[in-house]
């Protein structure tokens, strides 16, 4: 419908409707602007300044970004973060899928999945504290191994990259349950007919998974993997709880580097530059991944 086909009265009514609509959405827009857009703009502005949290920020252009990429500790953080992205895809998502596949068709499968969900109720810091007790130099794991006569154990939280690997496993302990739950929902939503047809054709086990279940799980896998990538890119709490990024900066992630520069060193400009970098990387990774996974050629 175009403006020419409307009477003057209808046009007036439409304008009134638009104004009242704007009035209704304005408070929401304002809240979003102040709470979401403003911090983003402010952080981007700070990343181009030198600022110690006192006085006024001093414009330094791209100096923080140059300093950031010059810092070998930052490059180490990027590599650790990539390890987290890869590790959390392989372990919590992979095991979650395995648990879902093994239990979704079983009688009483819910009871088998339930224990995996319990750790999800804990905060990341809580998980960190518990696993620190287990993995520290004289912790529960070493004591248990010593009881079996194994004394020469690795220094789980001291040697890199072992410390990052064990922290990924601790995260998996917490994250498997929710991934299993999501995959189970996906499996339960698959229509019965194609499954039964495939079974009648003799498809079972891996063949059934590869040809029927996996393609039909794709929309849900896209969401689970997408969430996992975003969550792992901003890994902070469990590392802060277990190693504080140490020893040295061996297990630091990007989120931890951002926190240290901003709040420990009071380098608000440099911390903001890392925050902007992390935001851009997360956005690009999410957009590229979701666009590739959810494109129309996959029929979603």
């Amino acid at each position: 419908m175009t403006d020419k086909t409307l009477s003057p009265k209808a046009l007036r009514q439409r304008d009134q409707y638009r104004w009242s609509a704007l009035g209704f959405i304005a408070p929401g827009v304002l809240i979003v602007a102040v709470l979401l857009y403003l911090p983003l703009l402010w952080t981007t502005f700070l990343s181009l300044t030198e600022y110690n949290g006192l006085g006024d920020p001093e414009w330094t252009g791209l100096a923080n970004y140059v300093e950031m990429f010059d810092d070998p500790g930052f490059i180490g953080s990027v590599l650790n973060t990539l390890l987290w992205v890869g590790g959390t895809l392989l372990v919590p998502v992979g095991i979650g899928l395995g648990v879902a596949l093994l239990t979704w068709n079983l009688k009483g499968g819910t009871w088998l999945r339930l224990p995996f969900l319990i750790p999800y109720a804990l905060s990341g810091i809580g998980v960190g504290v518990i696993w620190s007790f287990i993995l520290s130099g004289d912790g529960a794991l070493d004591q248990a191994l010593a009881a079996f006569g194994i004394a020469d154990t690795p220094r789980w939280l001291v040697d890199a990259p072992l410390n990052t690997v064990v922290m990924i496993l601790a995260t998996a302990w917490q994250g498997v349950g929710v991934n299993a739950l999501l995959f189970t929902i996906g499996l339960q939503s698959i229509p019965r007919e194609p499954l039964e047809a495939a079974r009648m054709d003799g498809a079972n086990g891996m063949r059934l998974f590869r040809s029927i279940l996996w393609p039909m799980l794709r929309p849900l896998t896209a969401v689970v993997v997408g969430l996992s990538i975003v969550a792992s890119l901003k890994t902070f709490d469990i590392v802060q709880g277990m190693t504080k990024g140490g020893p040295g900066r061996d297990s630091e992630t990007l989120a931890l580097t951002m926190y240290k520069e901003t709040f420990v060193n009071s380098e608000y400009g440099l911390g903001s530059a890392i925050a902007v970098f992390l935001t851009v990387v997360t956005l690009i990774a999410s957009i590229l991944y979701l666009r590739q996974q959810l494109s129309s050629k996959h029929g979603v």
Partner: protein
Amino acid sequence: MRSPRIPLTIAAAAAASLVLASCGGGAEDDGATTGTLDFYTNKAAWEPDFDELNATSESGADITLDTTGYSDAAQYDAFIKQSFRTDKSPGLFTWQTGPSLNELVEEDLIAQTTDIWTKAVDEGWVSPDLRDSYTIDGEQYCVPMNIAYWVMYYNKAIFDEQGIAEPTTWAELDAAAAQLADAGITPYYQTSTLFTFQWFQQLVAGTDPELYNGLATGEVKYTDPEIVDIMNTWLDQEEAGWFSDAGSTVDPAVGLKQGDYAMINFGSFFNGSLDGAGMVSGEDYDMFVIPAVNEGLEKTPVAVESGPLCVAENSSQKSLGLAYSEWWMSPEAQTAWSAARGDVAFNPQATVADPMLEELGTTVTGEGYELYDRYYEATPTPILTVALEQFGAFIANPSDPVPFLEAIQAEADDYWADQE
């Protein structure tokens, strides 16, 4: 329909908020010198001690502290810095001496306490030496909340069993450590997080106090041969198995109690932790001043840590905060504080509850000892952060110290270049 008004609204709101955010804060001093004073501290664990002190401050100065304790130092620092932009800047808060305090004073955010210090020194309530740590450009800011000397605590039962007496020279200390190691007892405690600096501090200042001061001012480089030699001494000791497992999460006081190690280099506030772990001062544990590495030094250097109590210049409770600060320096307040906290007192006229701490205070302020600022306060924050990480990495994997020192020096070069 895509309306241009929505992006415009967002832009206008963002711009308005930016203007608001950039406005400075602050409030008028209400002039009250009695009442309830809002007090913020990063020592959340000490909150009951401050509350206990209220009974004395209410009768002595008619002021009651309303204490808010933070347990995360970084979060606390950010909170205090942001508060200066509001009309809620604190009437009293704890901070750190050294570069962190200088930073606030440079921005005119801290109330001067020159008059309070003049009176306290005249009354003999505080040593003029301590005033130096609180003096910036000839004026004083804040008052000392506490004072701690960094000494060596030891497990008396282990020393007795091994027939080891308190070492009075560096050679005796080395001999004691070697004897303990031979007997299968780890001599020293260490950790790879936060408290990673004290052995470095002890070795450098004990070798040459000028060298130590030079690191704090940038005149000495971490890569200078003297520092490398000192780190190699530390490496030799690490390789000899003189230090505890760096990855242990056992509470240090509990570790000393159960004999995981025989000695621990800590501030004199550690008495409180050891008492809390069930050890008895003078019976189960004792302490000694660590002898200088260089026996040719005229005076034995002792690291001192002093945390300030500050008043914000633009606080509505500025007068009240300053009135409390003045009372805080008095023997009455410091006697009550020492009883509440179990700590040494900076005021020589105060009565110290624990005889071991009283003796320590008398010893280190007497002839033959000189006090120097602890590494944590003496070192500019960006250098300190890297140094703590690098010492932690060295402790976790003791090896050639040069790469660790180079990493610290790289940060120091950046920092001192920015200061020029």
